[in-house]
């Protein structure tokens, strides 16, 4: 479970995030929806303990991310905004490196990679160096790398960015299977259809703050709009989408 309570981040004069509060439950998919610059990435970075909040706190399974960053990261799998791979290492070596960093034993890593190769359809590219991979192949390896330790909580920052339709569909299936395994999945997107197709709970962010949250039915009811797109535009203040 991931909780944000009055989370805030100020970069000098700029208030990137101000007072963001929400709860992402286990066995559910929670979507952070908002236009570019709404503060989604910064919020996810604070949960991953990569950025220190200037106000409020974030908790992963009750662990304060700022106070105990290592313990919080133990319980997280993160597909961050940057998702570079090591070009001279094979896909398997890239994934195994993260398993080793988390102290996993070699047999456990091999088993995890076998499981992820099946889930993400990595078989054909596993032993190839990642140099020259397509964007979709890179994304799959980056996701496998984030999930190698079978984390109970998963953060995905704009996971479908730059992917073609087929890969996007596969990725949605993967995310649903993570929910089926009882994981807490929190992902961000600026694409409304993406979020509505997948999420149990939608958190709409604009200009660094949460403007509305709830299931898609609840959002429709709150906004009084007929479609989710209209609701988003209205709630997000007529920007982006």
């Amino acid at each position, binding site marked *: 479970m991931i909780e944000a309570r009055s989370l805030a981040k100020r970069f000098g004069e700029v208030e990137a995030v101000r007072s963001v509060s929400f709860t992402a439950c286990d066995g559910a998919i929670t979507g952070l929806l908002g236009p570019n610059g709404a503060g989604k990435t910064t919020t996810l*970075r604070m949960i*991953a303990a*990569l*950025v*220190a909040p200037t106000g409020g706190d974030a908790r992963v399974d009750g662990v304060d991310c700022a106070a105990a*960053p*290592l*313990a919080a*990261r*133990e319980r*997280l799998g*993160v*597909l*961050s*905004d*940057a*998702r*570079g*791979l*090591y*070009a*001279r*290492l094979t896909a398997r*070596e890239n994934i195994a*490196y*993260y398993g*080793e*960093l*988390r*102290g996993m*034993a070699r047999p456990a890593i091999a088993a995890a990679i076998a499981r992820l190769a099946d889930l993400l359809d990595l078989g054909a590219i596993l032993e190839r160096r990642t140099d020259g991979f397509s964007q979709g192949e890179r994304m799959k390896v*980056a996701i496998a*790398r*984030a999930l190698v330790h079978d984390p109970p909580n998963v953060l995905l920052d704009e996971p479908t960015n730059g992917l073609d339709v087929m890969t996007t569909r596969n990725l949605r299936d993967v995310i649903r299977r993570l929910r089926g395994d009882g994981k807490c999945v929190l992902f961000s997107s600026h694409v409304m259809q993406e979020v509505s197709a997948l999420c149990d709970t939608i958190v709409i962010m604009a200009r660094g703050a949460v403007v509305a949250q709830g299931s898609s039915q609840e959002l429709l009811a709150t906004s009084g709009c007929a479609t989710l797109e209209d609701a988003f535009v209205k709630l997000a203040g007529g920007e982006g989408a």
Partner: protein
Amino acid sequence: MRSVVGVVLAKELRDALRDRRTALMILVASIVTGPLTLVLLAQFVAGLEEKAAVLKVRMAGEEHAPQLVNFLHRNDIEIEAAPADYEARVRDGRMDAVIVIPDDFDDRMLAGDSATVEILYDDSRTEAGPAIRQAERLLRAFNRETGTLRLVARGVSPDLAEPVKVERVNTATPRQKGALVLFLIPMFAILSPLLGGMTVAIDSTAGERERGSLEPLLANPVRASRFALGKWLAAWTLASVVAALTLSGFVLAALAYAQRKLEALAAFGALELLQFFAVIVPFAAMTSALQLLICTYGRTYREAQTYSSYVFTVVSFVPMIVLFSGLKDAFWQLAVPVLGQQMVLARVMRGDAVVPADYLVPAAIAAAIAAACLVTVSHLLRQERIVFGR
């Protein structure tokens, strides 16, 4: 379970060894450049010695100076008649020096007067130096002999004309004679770890930032200091390996050339190699940490490369300063990075006594600097402007 530092070290080494830039650098910088330079220099120096060693002078108009010719023959000097176009040849650099005898030489000598002799040379060509000096030396010796004979003929003691007798006693050992050439080995020894550690230092810091792998890496539950340590150990390892290869190359070159050309090179053998390692391995710990630190500031590979080249330039200036300023060995120099290493290595090369403090003081200073750099790198890896800065 392996330690996290070991995991990072193993990954960085594997990554670096697959990097063609690393392979090329190891080949070019360490195996080829050093020994090749030495071999060329050995050829050059040996060439100088050979030119002077052949006791031969070129003369124009030798028929006008029978006494001089007689003197030279008595001293086992071979005389070669200069060709007609000797002036042009000297100007073109095809001939080093020619002794020119004027027509009236013999007449004036017989009359007991002083006669003029010209040495024709082009002193802008340094390699002509030994031939010029040899011609001068021979003519001075002839002068002294003739003068002495004339004084004796007049019943005057020759000592009157030579109140001070100069005798040369050369105390330089074979090692010291090769000092300039051997100055190069310490310089390569100091620069090689910089070359060796550079690609890893750049790739594991600025490279991670550029390809966007730093943010996900730091999202792992691992302390930043563990990453800094692992990356530094990888850079240190490669720096030491390249230094070892470079120096071993010198030993091989020295073996091949010792007997024939440069006696001084024979002094760089297995013992000196070990002494060099004792100096260079701790030094490499410092340079690798320093490179890691400055490269962490680089946003791209290229930017970090520029920063590294500044360090390289600064370090390579130090041996030059020592060479041209004629700095004398002093204890305080041990405390100055690079200067201390340079001094100790030069002592090893000269075969001077090297005491434990000569190794320990520079090593301790290097360790302290490396530690400070690593603490700073660990700190930087927690800074948002470094992790996310574009």
